[in-house]
C-alpha cells in the first residue's frame, strides 16, 4: 500500500499524432519501469493488445515509480483512454478515476478538435491540467502562439506549460516533476470499509475477465470475498496486481491506487462499469454514484451476403459480444435478405467498428441495413410496442400514435462555423434550447430527434465545421410526432431492408434523396429500373435508372483471352458483393450509403 501523499493519478489528453504514446513511452523509460533492453517490445506489445481489443477496451493503465527531486519516491498511475470522441461517455468515465491530466499539444500544429473534446471532459471531471508542448525541437514550432491558443480556446493558464520533445527526451524530467508538484494527491481513508470503483473490464482468454479498479477507501487483498454493489455478484479475488505495463501481482491495494483484479468472472457482461466493489462482510453502505450503463440506441440488421455464412456470423457475433457488453443482438429474418441479426450499438462509430471487425477478422461479407432507433408505437387498444425495425411496423389501422426518442445535444464550435451548425440542427428538426459564447467559441444546445442524429449527423457536423466542432448528447425521453414508414421499391418490388421511419413533413425530401442516391449506387442493368419511395400505397418520389448503353471491350485478340477471362472472374467475385432483388442486383454498400444525406 502506498501513502496517499505519494500517489499521483493522471491521464494524457492529446490529438492523434501529437505524441501521446511517445510521451508515455518516455515517462516509462526514464523511470526505469521497463529496462532499456525490453523497452520497445514491452510497450508495443501492450499497444497491440489495445488495438486487438479494438473499441471494447476503453482504458489501459500503467504504474510508474518515480524518485522525485524532494527525495521521495512517488507512484504515478497513468490511465490511457482511446481518443475517439464518439466514445466520449467512456472517456469521461476513465477521467473520473484520476485527479489530473497532461494536455499534450503539438507546438507547431496547435490545438485540434479532438484535443478540445477530450480536454473538456477533463475539465468536467475537475482535473488539474498541466499543458505540455511537444515537438518544440522542430523548426516549425511556435510555442508562444500555441500557448496563447490554449489560453484563448480552452481557457486554461498556459504560462507555465512544460516544453518538451518526446522524441529526443528533452524536458521529460520536467514533466515528471510537474506531475508530482502540480497534480493533487488523491484523497481517501485506508481504515474505512472498502470502496473501489470498477473503471473497466475486458476478457482475457487465459485469465477470464480482468477488472480495472481504482480504490477510493479501504484496502483490498488477494483472497478477499468482494461484492459488486449494483449487480450483487459475489467473487473471491484470485489475483490482484498492477500493470507496469505487463501484469505484476501485488498483495494489496489501498486508497488512491489503481490496479486490476481477476476473480473467475466469466463474461464482461457480469461486470458493470462504474460499479462499486466492496467487501462481502463489513462492506460500505453507500455505493459510489456510478454511471449510467451504456445502452444501445442505434439498431440495424446485419445479414451475411452469402446465406451459407449465417452460422459463421452467429459464432462471430457471440464472440464479439463476450467482450463488449454494450453490443446487443437477436436473430432477425428479412423477406429480402434471409436470416441475420438485429443488433444494437452505442452509436454509428460503434456500429461501423463492429461491422468492420466482423468482416475483417471473421471474413464475413455483410449487408448492413438502415440504422434505426427504438420507436414507441402506441396501439388503439392502449398497449405499446417497442419498434426496433421499421419492417415490423404494425398495421396502421391499429396504431394510435408513435413516439420517438429525443436528445439534448451540446455542440461547441468556433463562431465562424456557427451559422452552418444552426442550419444543420434546424434541418434535422432541432429546437434550439441555448446559445452562449466563451471567447470566440459558441456553445449551442439543441433538442433533436435521435433518428435525425444516428445516421450521419456527426459526419455532417465534422464536415461543415472542418472538424472544429465537438459534440455530445444525452437521451431526454420520448415525444409524439407525425412519423411514417417509408418504403423503397426497386423495379416495382419493395426492398424491406431499405424501409425507414421518417417525419411526414420530410418524407418527400428524404424519399427523393434516397431515390437519387440509389440511382447512383445501383449499377446500370441491361434494362431500365424504376426506383420509388412510397408511404403505404402512395408513391412520393421516383427516379429511373437508365439501361446500360455501352460496356464492351474494344480490342480483344488472341493474347487477350486469358487476361479477359481473369477480368471476368474478378467481376464475378465482385458480383458476390451484390444482392439479388428480383432481377436487380444491389451492391451491399448501397443499403447503408443510400441513407447518407449530403444536404
Amino acid at each position, binding site marked *: 500500500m502506498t501513502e496517499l501523499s505519494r500517489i499521483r493519478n493522471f491521464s494524457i489528453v492529446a490529438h492523434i499524432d501529437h505524441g501521446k504514446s511517445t510521451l508515455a513511452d518516455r515517462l516509462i523509460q526514464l523511470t526505469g519501469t521497463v529496462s532499456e533492453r525490453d523497452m520497445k517490445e514491452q510497450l508495443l506489445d501492450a499497444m497491440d493488445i489495445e488495438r486487438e481489443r479494438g473499441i471494447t477496451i476503453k482504458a489501459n493503465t500503467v504504474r510508474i515509480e518515480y524518485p522525485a527531486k524532494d527525495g521521495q519516491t512517488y507512484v504515478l498511475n497513468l490511465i490511457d483512454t482511446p481518443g475517439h470522441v464518439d466514445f466520449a461517455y467512456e472517456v469521461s468515465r476513465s477521467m473520473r478515476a484520476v485527479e489530473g491530466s497532461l494536455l499534450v499539444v503539438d507546438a507547431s500544429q496547435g490545438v485540434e478538435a479532438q484535443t478540445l473534446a477530450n480536454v473538456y471532459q477533463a475539465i468536467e471531471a475537475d482535473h488539474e491540467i498541466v499543458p505540455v508542448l511537444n515537438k518544440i525541437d522542430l523548426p516549425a514550432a511556435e510555442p508562444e502562439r500555441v500557448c496563447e491558443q490554449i489560453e484563448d480556446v480552452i481557457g486554461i493558464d498556459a504560462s507555465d506549460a512544460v516544453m518538451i520533445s518526446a522524441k529526443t527526451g528533452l524536458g521529460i524530467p520536467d514533466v515528471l516533476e510537474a506531475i508530482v508538484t502540480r497534480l493533487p494527491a488523491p484523497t481517501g481513508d485506508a481504515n474505512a470499509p472498502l470502496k473501489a470503483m470498477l473503471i473497466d473490464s475486458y476478457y482475457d482468454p487465459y485469465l477470464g475477465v480482468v477488472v480495472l479498479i481504482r480504490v477510493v477507501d479501504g484496502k483490498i487483498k488477494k483472497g478477499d470475498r468482494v461484492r459488486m454493489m449494483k449487480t450483487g455478484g459475489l467473487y473471491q479475488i484470485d489475483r490482484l496486481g498492477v500493470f507496469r505495463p505487463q501484469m505484476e501481482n501485488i498483495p494489496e491495494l489501498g486508497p488512491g491506487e489503481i490496479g486490476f483484479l481477476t476473480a473467475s468472472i466469466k463474461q464482461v457482461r457480469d461486470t458493470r462499469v462504474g460499479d462499486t466493489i466492496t467487501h462481502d462482510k463489513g462492506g460500505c453502505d453507500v455505493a459510489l454514484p456510478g454511471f449510467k450503463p451504456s445502452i444501445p440506441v442505434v439498431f440495424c440488421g446485419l445479414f451475411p451476403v452469402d446465406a451459407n455464412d449465417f452460422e459463421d456470423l452467429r459464432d462471430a457475433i457471440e464472440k464479439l459480444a463476450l467482450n463488449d457488453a454494450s453490443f446487443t443482438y437477436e436473430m432477425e429474418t428479412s423477406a429480402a435478405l434471409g436470416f441475420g441479426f438485429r443488433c444494437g450499438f452505442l452509436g454509428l462509430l460503434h456500429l461501423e467498428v463492429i461491422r468492420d471487425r466482423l468482416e475483417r477478422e471473421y471474413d464475413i461479407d455483410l449487408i448492413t441495413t438502415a440504422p434505426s432507433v427504438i420507436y414507441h408505437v402506441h396501439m388503439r387498444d392502449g398497449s405499446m410496442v417497442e419498434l426496433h425495425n421499421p419492417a415490423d411496423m404494425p398495421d396502421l389501422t391499429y396504431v394510435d400514435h408513435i413516439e420517438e426518442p429525443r436528445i439534448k445535444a451540446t455542440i461547441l464550435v468556433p463562431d465562424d462555423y456557427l451559422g452552418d451548425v444552426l442550419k444543420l440542427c434546424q434541418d434535422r428538426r432541432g429546437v434550439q434550447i441555448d446559445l452562449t459564447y466563451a471567447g470566440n467559441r459558441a456553445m449551442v444546445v439543441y433538442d433533436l430527434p435521435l433518428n435525425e442524429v444516428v445516421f450521419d449527423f456527426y459526419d455532417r457536423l465534422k464536415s461543415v465545421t472542418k472538424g472544429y466542432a465537438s459534440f455530445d448528447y444525452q437521451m431526454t425521453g420520448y415525444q409524439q410526432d407525425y412519423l411514417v414508414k417509408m418504403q423503397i421499391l426497386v423495379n416495382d418490388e419493395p426492398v424491406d431492408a431499405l424501409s425507414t421511419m421518417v417525419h411526414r413533413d420530410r418524407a418527400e425530401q428524404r424519399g427523393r434523396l434516397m431515390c437519387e442516391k440509389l440511382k447512383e449506387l445501383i449499377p446500370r*442493368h*441491361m*434494362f431500365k429500373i424504376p426506383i420509388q419511395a412510397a408511404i403505404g400505397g402512395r408513391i412520393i418520389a421516383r427516379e429511373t435508372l437508365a439501361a*446500360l*448503353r*455501352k*460496356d*464492351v*471491350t*474494344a*480490342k*480483344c*485478340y*488472341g*493474347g*487477350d*483471352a*486469358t487476361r*479477359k*477471362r481473369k477480368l*471476368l472472374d474478378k*467481376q*464475378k467475385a465482385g*458480383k458476390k458483393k451484390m444482392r439479388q432483388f428480383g*432481377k436487380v442486383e444491389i451492391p451491399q454498400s448501397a443499403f447503408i450509403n443510400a441513407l447518407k444525406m449530403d444536404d
Partner: protein
Amino acid sequence: MDGELVAAIIERILHHWPAANDLEITLEANPTSAEAGRFIAYHDAGVSRLSMGIQALNDPDLKALGRLHSADEALRAFDIARGIFPRVSFDLIYARQHQTLEAWRAELSRALSLGLDHLSAYQLTIEDGTAFGARAKIGKLDGLPHDDLAVDMYELTQDLCDAAGLPAYEISNHASDLAQSRHNLIYWRYGDYLGIGPGAHGRLTLDGVKYATATPLLPNQWLDQVERIGSGEAPREIISKKDQAVEALMMGLRLKEGVSLARIRALSDTAVNKEKLNEFKDLGLITLDGSQLRCSAKGRPVLNGILRGLLT
C-alpha cells in the same frame, strides 16, 4: 523490320507447316515513310495483307495518342501499300479527348473514301497500367466523351461502315465478307494458334488437352531464352473445359456470326446461366437460331454485361 528478315521468317514457317493455297499472311506495319520503303520487299517475301496503325487523321490527336507519324505521312504510306498488297487495312481510334460526333463523322467518312477493304475502329479505352491510365488517375485526362456520346459514336460508326460496304463482322472490325482477317477469325472462333515472338500468346490442343502458351514480353529476355534452351516458350498452362467454354463464349460473341451454344455446352454444361439466357433473349440482346447464339445489334455494345450475366 527489314524485308530479308520477314522473308526468312516466312520461309522457316512454310518449312515447318503445310500451307493452304489461299494462305493469307498479314504484317502489322507502321505508317511511316521509312517503313513504306520496305513494302515491296515485304510483298516479295510473301506478305499478302498489310495492316497499318494509322489511329487518327489529324496531327494534334496523333500527338496526344503518342504516335510518331503525321497524318499526311500515314496517308502516303497507305497509298503506297494499296498499290502493292492485295489486301490492306488500317486502325482508327475514336471517342478521343475533345472529339465531337461531327468531327468523327468527317474523319471516318474520309477514311472510308480511301478505298479500304478492312477497317478496325476502336473506341479509346483507358486502362490501368498504361500512360493514359496514369493520366486519368491524376485527373489529367479531360474532354473524354461521356457514355452517351460514346454510344452515339459507336452507332455512327456502324451506320457509315454499313453504307460503305464494310459491315462489322466483329465488335470493332469492319470488312466485306471476303476481306475478313483470317488469322483474327481464328482467335474469335476459338481455334488453335501459335504465338512465337516476344509477348505472344497461343492456344494449342495436344492429345485432346488445350494449353495456353505465352512467351517473355521483353525482346532481350526472349532472345536470351531462345539462345539458352532453344525455345521462347514459358511453362504451358492447361485450360480447363469450363475455362475453355468461357473463352469460347467470350470470343465467339464478339463475332456477328456468333458461337455454337452446343459447342459451349459440350465443353461445360454449367458454364451458361439458362435464366439469364432467356432474360437477355426477351430483352432482345441476344438471339438463338437453332444452336447458334448471337449478340443482336442492340446487345453488341453491352457485350461485357451480357457475359457477366451469362457466365456462372
